[in-house]
């Protein structure tokens, strides 16, 4: 994609390629050690609503700052008391350890030992949109893996599920199947096959874990996330509990959820996209 005959809309300059590589790689120390995952190519970077994709979160709009920058600036300016720097001058070797030691104890939620929660019968469903430009999807996968390591895979399977959702942005929206009860279930009757919230209740109360879910696409992203019944019942995709992937049973490219089945991949998706 590197421009060979000057800068056009169909290619990237060397500077743009470097920037993209940094976004994919995530923040790193000067020795290349990763601090936090980057944002993967999703095919849905532009999103469906202006400002909700990379355009609002990662790239600064004209005359403003990207959301990522705004949050980072606020944390540096108002939360951290032991650092006196800003986003522009933040040094990952020097400043990051100070920043982390002060704020991680108060803010971080990375403790993977869910054994007490599990012992009380607690169930946890995580989900993340592959096209999320605000929080990197890989971080949720890392947490999922950490819980499995802490509890053991079998124990974790009794209380933890992760759904990675293609084409969905931060919390809602995106060109994918963006409507699956991720915020809340609508009033009854509940449908645990279409609705993550109802699926959690069924798991807790009836002991049936959610391994598959039929998600719909909603044109109005927020409305779709509030009530999946408002979404298009003819645009569906099968969501599979990680690490399984939805695989087309036959051939085709825009088939409904019923054309897919959940398959454990030889290599996890994250690996295949180069992470």
């Amino acid at each position, binding site marked *: 994609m590197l421009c060979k005959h000057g800068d056009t809309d169909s290619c990237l300059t060397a500077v743009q390629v470097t920037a993209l590589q940094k976004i994919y790689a995530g923040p790193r120390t000067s020795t290349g050690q990763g601090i936090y995952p980057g944002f993967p190519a999703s095919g849905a970077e532009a999103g469906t609503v202006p400002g909700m994709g990379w355009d609002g979160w990662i790239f600064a709009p004209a005359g403003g700052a990207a959301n990522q920058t705004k949050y980072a600036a*606020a944390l540096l300016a*108002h939360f951290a008391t032991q650092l006196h720097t800003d986003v522009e001058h933040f040094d990952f070797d020097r400043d990051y350890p100070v920043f982390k030691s002060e704020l991680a104890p108060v803010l971080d939620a990375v403790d993977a030992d869910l054994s007490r929660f599990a012992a009380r019968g607690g169930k946890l469903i995580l989900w993340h949109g592959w096209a999320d430009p605000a929080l990197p999807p890989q971080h949720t996968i890392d947490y999922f893996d950490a819980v499995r390591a802490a509890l053991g895979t079998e124990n974790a399977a009794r209380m933890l599920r992760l759904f990675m959702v293609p084409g969905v942005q931060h919390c809602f929206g995106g060109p994918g199947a963006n409507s699956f009860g991720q*915020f809340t279930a609508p009033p009854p009757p509940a449908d645990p096959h279409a609705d993550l919230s109802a699926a959690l209740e069924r798991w807790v109360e009836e002991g049936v874990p959610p391994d598959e879910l039929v998600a719909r696409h909603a044109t109005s992203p927020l409305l779709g996330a*509030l009530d999946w019944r408002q979404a298009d019942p003819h645009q569906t995709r099968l969501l599979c509990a990680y690490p399984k992937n939805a695989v087309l049973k036959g051939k085709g490219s825009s088939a409904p959820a019923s054309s897919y089945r959940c398959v454990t991949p030889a290599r996890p998706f994250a690996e295949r996209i180069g992470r």
Partner: protein
Amino acid sequence: MCVQKQFDRNKKVRIALLASSLILAKALCPQTALAQAPALPPLPDSVSEQARAQLSALTGAPNGTRLTVVQMRAFADQAQTAMAAEQRKKYAVTITEEVMAGVPVRIVSPSERAPDAKRVLLNLHGGGFQIDSGSLTENVPIAALTGLRVVAVRYRLAPENPFPVAVNDALAVYRALLRTYRPEHIAVYGTSAGAILGPELIARIIADGLPVPAALGVFSGDADLARRGDSAGLFPFSMGGQDLSDVYAAYAGKQGLTQPLISPIYGDLKRFPPTLCITSGRDFLLSATTNLCRKLGVEAVQAQTIVFDALPHAFWSYLAAPESDEAFKSMAKFFAQRLQQDPGASARCAVLTRAMLPDTTITSARAVPAGPFIAPFMLGEAQVPASCRVEGRISPEPGSDIRFEVWMPLSDWNGRLYGAGNGGFAGAISYSPGLVEAIQRGGAGVSTDAGHAIGSPAAAEDGSWAQGHPERIKDYGYRAVHLSALIAKALVAAFYGEPAQRAYFASCSNGGRQALRAHRLTTGPGWPRISSGTRRRSGRPERPCPQPTSRRSKPRCSIHALWAMGVRRHSSAIRGYASSTRRPCCANMGTPIPV
């Protein structure tokens, strides 16, 4: 009412009930017309022993004597008074005789609590239009169960006063009530003839262009006086020697039975209010009652039908049996829902302002009727059911100010508590997604502003509230969600009298972080162990007031105590708690909720 009764053809089973109405029943129920009725099987086992005993107490040949109207009225008064005296041992009410708009009314009021000042019920009693067989017995349980005043219209009777005199009297009382009550706070109901007059009154209200009441109860009724349903053939009716056609003819006078003001089923039912139909398997108006609610359903009116197996016509007004209690409860629940009123809910909600919870001030607790809700940050207006909404602030250390709200549906609580977190830097209570959806699903909901307030969505990335306020960063980081969950559980237990069976938390972005931060606190050592996140633990705390083991035992103690309070409000647990306040860990907690 039950001035008619039915028996099986073998005359083994006979009518109704209470000792003194036995006379009435016998007198009013001749055996004529029974010849063509088919044989009935014995009562099924599902019928309660009490109902069975009372129904079989009236064996032996009934007295087929023709009675004058005067004799029937005298018998009915005697029987009803005796029955009501029995009912009043169980249902505490006061009864007054008044005149409203020139019409005599009997007002039945709950006596164990102040009657709901905003809502009222209008009753039209049964008795074949010719006698008053239910202005007491149909209403005593209802007034006590609903906490509402029941105005029973003592309309002028047939045959002296044929149609439309009784409806006119009912309408005059309804108009009078409209001067004090809003139509959405009035429900109309009746049994037997009263459940014929009820639909007629609604048809008349609509015809006259008056506002329609909130609900209609048709309890063994009829809206089609021109035709007889199947059940009228199976279970023949007789009252003092008159059959059903005689009674309808005496009531209608010279009016045609198919005109919609007499038989509303022939008119436009679209504007009828939500209706509850109750009937029973051996009710001669089984067909008529179910036909009306079926037709209402076709016209898109909310209509529900309850059929009690095997029991006779209008049994609740003369059988002292569990089935009657159940029928009255169903009626009361329907009125409470339609009038957006839960017995005592306002008071039970308001008393939560006096809840003593650690580091917590309850600033408001009020019952809010069903209706639209809108708040900043919401997509649009949402319709929410009636709920008890508690607002408060938690301040675990100086400078900390966590605002929270707990919403609890007034009726049909599903036993769950739903927590909703906050995205970004938080700063506003999550109404939707959050509290709105929680109560729409029938659950209780809790949300906080995470300890600071922002003015607009545009300020979502503004972190200046954190500047120089480490306590606010802690609240945002983990305390707000955790503490509000504990407070919500205590409030839910106090309000419903039992703890939430399940607690859920769903949220995205920073809300996901909140969830994964809070679970350790809720399940970890050193914090109150309260059923959360998951499966129900035992219904009540093992130790209402634990010995102090650490500086944290204060909140544990008080929250458990309040919880115990909710579980067994009027029990010795409260006295136990009160005495336990002498123990150090509870000493400064006082009595959480005066009850």
